[in-house]
């Protein structure tokens, strides 16, 4: 079930790139991003209302941990630009290279309070194969 959920998550990401890209083509990237975020916020609030829950602020948490939405907006913003020229598959593939390399740096340096992990040859080999795959996709 968890494996199926992961595949569904991937499929949803691809569909979301198309939906957001079409919205950006009509309204412009900046306004489309506002609509995506506000609609998401409205539905999250609706969920809280239906479950009669509310967000209770907790002190002592670094401000940075509250800023995930900013990076989310930037990723939607950038995807909306690239979706039109690169298509969904190539945007996903190049994005994956960015994800792999940044994860690698985070692990290597132990950023975000993560435990440091040593560098292995197989990881370099993996990144090289991903890079070759992307070059092939570029045609």
């Amino acid at each position: 079930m968890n494996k199926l959920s992961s595949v569904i998550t991937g499929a949803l990401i691809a569909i979301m790139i198309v939906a957001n890209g079409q919205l950006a083509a009509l309204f412009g990237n900046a306004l489309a991003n506002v609509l995506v975020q506000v609609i998401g916020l409205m539905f999250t609030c609706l969920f809280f209302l239906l479950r009669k829950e509310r967000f209770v602020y907790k002190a002592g948490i670094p401000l940075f941990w509250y800023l995930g939405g900013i990076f989310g907006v930037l990723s939607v913003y950038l995807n909306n630009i690239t979706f039109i020229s690169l298509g969904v598959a190539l945007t996903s593939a190049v994005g994956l290279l960015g994800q792999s390399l940044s994860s690698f740096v985070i692990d290597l340096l132990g950023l975000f309070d993560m435990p440091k992990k040593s560098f292995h040859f197989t990881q370099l080999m993996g990144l090289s194969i991903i890079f070759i795959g992307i070059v092939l996709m570029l045609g």
Partner: protein
Amino acid sequence: MYLLDLAFAFVGGICIVLTRMVCAKLAERYSIWDSIFVAFFTGSVFAILLFLLSNPTFALPSLARLTPFMFTGGMIGIAINYLSNKVALHISVFTMTLLIFIGQMVTGMVLDWIQTQQLQPLKLLGACLVVVGLYFYTRQNKA
């Protein structure tokens, strides 16, 4: 311009990792739904600021060009956040990253095919290599 688009897609991938990391950290202290709420709240504020700073003049598009599908991005985003937070607790990062990418790539190719009516074998081979590369990259983390 093409190179710039590739650079944007690359930075977009980095932003996805940063979003996942920061949201997961917050979910540790609150709950998954609290974390999703905070992400969309700060995201809304930041998106409105970006909009105001960019060029707030726009022409309302004709209603005939609007489709309900275009407005589903936010809701799909909630589902993605929820599923990835739930699944992350039960399977390895290796399996999760690989399966998400396979789902994303297959759906992406189908959607590209629907739009262009062309299936490019080289693109398919490239995608397979990306999956193989991802396997090698994350194999170390699985061990």
